[in-house]
């Protein structure tokens, strides 16, 4: 896949919004559900063009999920989005029963993922949603790496998948580096940089940091492979096991708690098949706080040099 260094920055949120709009254009059964933060989660694009297919439900996340189930059971393809903390945590039982147990096709957008949410602080930073969503049967969990991929993933999730889907995305403008024509398959990881000494498996915004880390490591003659695991569930065991076999060590990177999240999913794959040393870059089991996004990413160890450090640690353990 082509990686662009010059496309500039764009939020994954806007990619999500464009994906919903595009899916709405292609399938007239797509219905948007709003919980009073329509613009803030990118759904305004859809709502403005298809007002008759946009349902405002106010600040009532539990009801939003249940209504989505009812719409899906009646032939609609509902997309519900709010901040990830509320999308994944405020209606978890509804997601488990009305969506997952009924196995209906509803796409939930989890906005404001990660600490890069910034000054709003701890309550608004979704750092537990991957763990919460991936433990639910029938759920697909997607975490695209940039705006272009978010758009593609969203459109595909809405138009091509079955069952409940959770897509997480961030608020900040981040490098938009992937190819419009990229080979994107839900459930299949992407090899972004080949390497032989170690593998960095990253998801979401951390993929860019992983690419940065890869560049920094090259200067030190360390050859790092970078894989983008945009689908956390079902996880691409093949690409992970190939990396384990060929590079012998893995560092995962995610804007999420270390416990139970993406890194944990990778660890599950490894110990069951080919246990190699692994290190985790992620939130160290604590709440976030207010600050500028870049300050927080730095404070909590979520930038390229932190990945570099963990790479060096893990390589010592090979």
């Amino acid at each position, binding site marked *: 896949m082509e990686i662009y260094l010059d496309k500039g920055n764009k939020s994954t949120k806007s990619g999500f919004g464009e994906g919903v709009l595009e899916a709405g254009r292609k399938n007239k059964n797509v219905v948007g559900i709003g919980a009073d933060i329509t613009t803030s989660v990118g759904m305004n694009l859809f709502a403005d063009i298809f007002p008759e297919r946009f349902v405002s439900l106010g600040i009532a996340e539990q009801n939003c999920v249940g209504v989505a*189930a009812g*719409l899906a059971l009646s032939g609609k393809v509902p997309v519900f989005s709010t901040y990830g903390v509320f999308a994944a945590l405020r209606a978890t039982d509804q997601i488990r029963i009305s969506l997952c147990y009924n196995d209906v096709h509803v796409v939930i957008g989890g906005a404001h993922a990660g600490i890069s949410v910034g000054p709003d602080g701890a309550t608004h930073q979704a750092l537990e949603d991957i763990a919460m969503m991936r433990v639910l049967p029938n759920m697909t969990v997607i975490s695209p790496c940039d705006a272009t991929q978010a758009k593609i993933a969203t459109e595909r999730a809405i138009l091509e998948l079955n069952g409940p889907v959770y897509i997480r995305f961030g608020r900040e403008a981040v490098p938009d580096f992937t190819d419009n024509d990229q080979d994107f398959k839900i459930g299949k990881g992407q090899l972004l940089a080949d390497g032989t000494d170690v593998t960095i498996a990253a998801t979401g915004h951390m993929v860019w940091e992983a690419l940065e880390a890869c560049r920094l490591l090259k200067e030190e003659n360390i050859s790092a492979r970078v894989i983008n695991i945009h689908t956390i569930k079902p996880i691409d065991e093949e690409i992970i096991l190939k990396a384990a076999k060929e590079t012998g060590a893995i560092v995962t990177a995610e804007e999420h708690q270390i416990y139970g999240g993406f890194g944990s999913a990778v660890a599950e794959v490894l110990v069951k098949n080919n246990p190699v040393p692994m290190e985790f870059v992620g939130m160290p089991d604590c709440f976030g706080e207010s600050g500028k996004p870049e300050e927080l990413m730095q404070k909590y160890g979520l930038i390229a040099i932190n990945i570099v450090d963990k790479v060096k640690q893990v390589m010592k353990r090979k």
Partner: protein
Amino acid sequence: MLLFFTFRIKINFYNFVTLIYLEMNYIKKHTIDELADLAISIRKDVVRALKVAGSGHLGGSLGLADVFTVLYFNRMRHNPDNPAWPDRDRLILSIGHVAPVFYTALAHAGYFPIDELQTLRKLGSRLQGHPGRDHHLPGIELSAGSLGQGLSVAVGMALAAKMDNADWKVYTIHGDGELQEGSIWEAAMSAAHHKLDSLIALVDSNKVQIDGRVSDVMEIEPLAEKWRSFGWAVFECDGNSIGGLVETYQKAEKISGKPSVIIAHTLMGKGVKSIEGDYRWHGRAPNAKESEDFIREIEG
């Protein structure tokens, strides 16, 4: 397509004249007496199924036998031979624990053999402890068992019908204890906001829940005022009177511009005098001896 299905339901279930009446919505196939007999049969089969199962919820199931009878044999437009008929009315059971009466009504309506009721709660059965669509029992619209979720799902369905200009209705059934869940009031607010007059809820107002009397556990009165203040048309009736239910549903179905709720005053365990009103039967199944006694009491 629509016409085809409408035709099928005519052939299968009603003679032509009855159907016309049905569609005009003021005369039903069964007389009130016939419906009352049906409710008795359903009650007996509920007791039998629960006895074999060895666990399950008898009290609420008996209390709701009349409501299910009225819905499936008088009010709802549905076709047991084609459970997925797009124009069917939907029944959303929000209180999954009364699955026994729901299944029994479905069986009596012809969705599956009555014998299958004996598999209730057994490994591999289509009759799960709480309704589960993953087990493919015909007639189940929603897997349920966690309280307070059904009204939201019904709102979603009614919204879909409205978007499609379809004329099918959504009937829901709730417990009175269930109304303590905040999600119910979120759903109620949204149904009024979106003027969903195809939505008709019913509250099984038996005044008890697991821990005891609703008024002791968590008071929900004044209930009619609550629903009214949430923008609903409110009706009350004796939920163990077939005639009362039919009449009240007829009124509710005529409401336009807002959703309706029927507060149906029932007795937990209705039909078995010796347990009527006793909250301890919320989640119990009768043993062999009790089962015999209860059936005798139901026969009266």
